[in-house]
């Protein structure tokens, strides 16, 4: 849900709400869509939004801007300008990214004197987007290991090196859990899960805390055990910021020199974690429309 725009016409249709400015369609429009799936890469999101629009000549794209909604959801906004039909056109796109869907505010403006105004409104609407999702597990924002491939499994992502399985090493980034969970509890729960899959733990010990971003406390454990005919060495890192707990796992059955290399990569991933914004505690007002509040 986004706020109504005073003086603008709002036209709900299908999966979207379109706002038309007081100056009329010839000036531009802003379209809001919510719960759009699937979640695509940034480039694919842009391509999806611009598909069906007149092709822009000499298109220029501004730097993507990170933002956080009032509810603590993460988003990204970008401006694209170019010429279409001999006139300058500006697109402002703001995406609010949730676990498995996104909401998008897409403004198109055809009059240069209103470009900045449209850009401001699009970003403001997105920042006030109310999805009312409550406390939940969320995706963690981190820098993926360079050159590794990522396989998404729900909210979890498993990263493996280009020479896998010769280099039998994976990094698993588990979704962030709301609350400050004890690292020992996560260790215990994960072991329970692994034992059910045939893993036989041999040795568990605490490690030096890994480096983490300011505001994040970190703990780390090493678990050595056997799975089938392979000895696995696992490092479990648990980051906490008081609002969320961010577990991350390195598993390796590779030779020692590759494990040392992988541990460096893992520690960089851990260090790159960006804490999620704390959520606004208020519950959104009563819903009278699926689009606006």
């Amino acid at each position, binding site marked *: 849900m986004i706020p109504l725009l005073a003086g603008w016409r709002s036209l709900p249709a299908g999966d979207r709400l379109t706002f038309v400015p007081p100056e009329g369609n010839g000036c531009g429009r802003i379209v809001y869509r919510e719960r759009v799936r*699937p*979640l*695509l*890469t*940034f480039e*694919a*999101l842009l391509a999806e939004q611009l598909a069906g629009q007149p092709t822009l000549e000499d298109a220029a794209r501004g*730097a*993507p*801007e*990170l933002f956080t909604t009032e509810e603590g959801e*993460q988003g*990204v906004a970008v401006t694209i300008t170019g010429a279409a039909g001999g006139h300058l056109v500006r697109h402002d796109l703001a*995406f609010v*990214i949730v676990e498995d869907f*996104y909401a998008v505010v897409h403004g198109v403006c055809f009059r240069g004197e209103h470009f900045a105004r449209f850009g401001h409104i699009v970003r403001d609407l997105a920042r006030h987007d109310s999805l009312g999702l409550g406390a939940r597990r969320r*995706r*963690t*924002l*981190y*820098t*993926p290991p360079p050159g590794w*491939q*990522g*396989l*998404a*499994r729900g909210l979890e*992502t*498993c990263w493996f090196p*280009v*020479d*896998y*399985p*010769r280099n*039998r090493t994976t990094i698993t*980034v588990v979704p962030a859990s709301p609350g400050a969970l004890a690292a020992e509890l996560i260790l215990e729960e994960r072991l329970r899960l692994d034992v059910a899959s045939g893993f036989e733990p041999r040795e568990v010990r605490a490690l030096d805390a890994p480096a983490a971003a300011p505001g994040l406390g970190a703990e780390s454990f090493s678990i050595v055990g056997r799975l089938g005919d392979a000895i696995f060495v696992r490092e479990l890192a648990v980051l906490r910021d008081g609002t969320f707990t961010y577990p991350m796992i390195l598993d390796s059955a590779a030779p020692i020199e590759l494990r040392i290399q992988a541990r460096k990569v893992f520690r960089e991933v851990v260090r790159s974690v*960006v804490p999620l914004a704390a959520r606004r505690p208020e519950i959104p007002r009563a819903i009278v429309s699926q689009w606006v509040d």
Partner: protein
Amino acid sequence: MQILFDIPSERVHGEPLVPRPEDMSAFLHGLLVRGLAPGEEVRVVGAGDVESDLGWPIALFHVNVVRRDEVVAARLLALYSFFEWVGVATADGVDEDCVAAVTSGRPDVRGRQARCLADILGPAVAS
């Protein structure tokens, strides 16, 4: 998501990866009989589990396409197990070059869908 071949061959064709089917036998049967012309049948003359150059498991089938008891084509069918995904490659030939290309296959799991938040927010974090 697709198969990348470190040793490419014009006679080896990879297909987009698919989630591992519940019924692998039915999946395999479908692969073996697809594209057959009327009057043709397929015979599996060899099968075995091998590993790719990097160690990915591959179920490899040497199949003959037969018409009126005459072999009209000999092919390799490779089923790769890439974690919970399956890759399929066919080779129009069964010689060493085809085998070398097939066993050089590895997964490329990139796609349009985001794997993690950085795939969407990363460009903004970087800038």
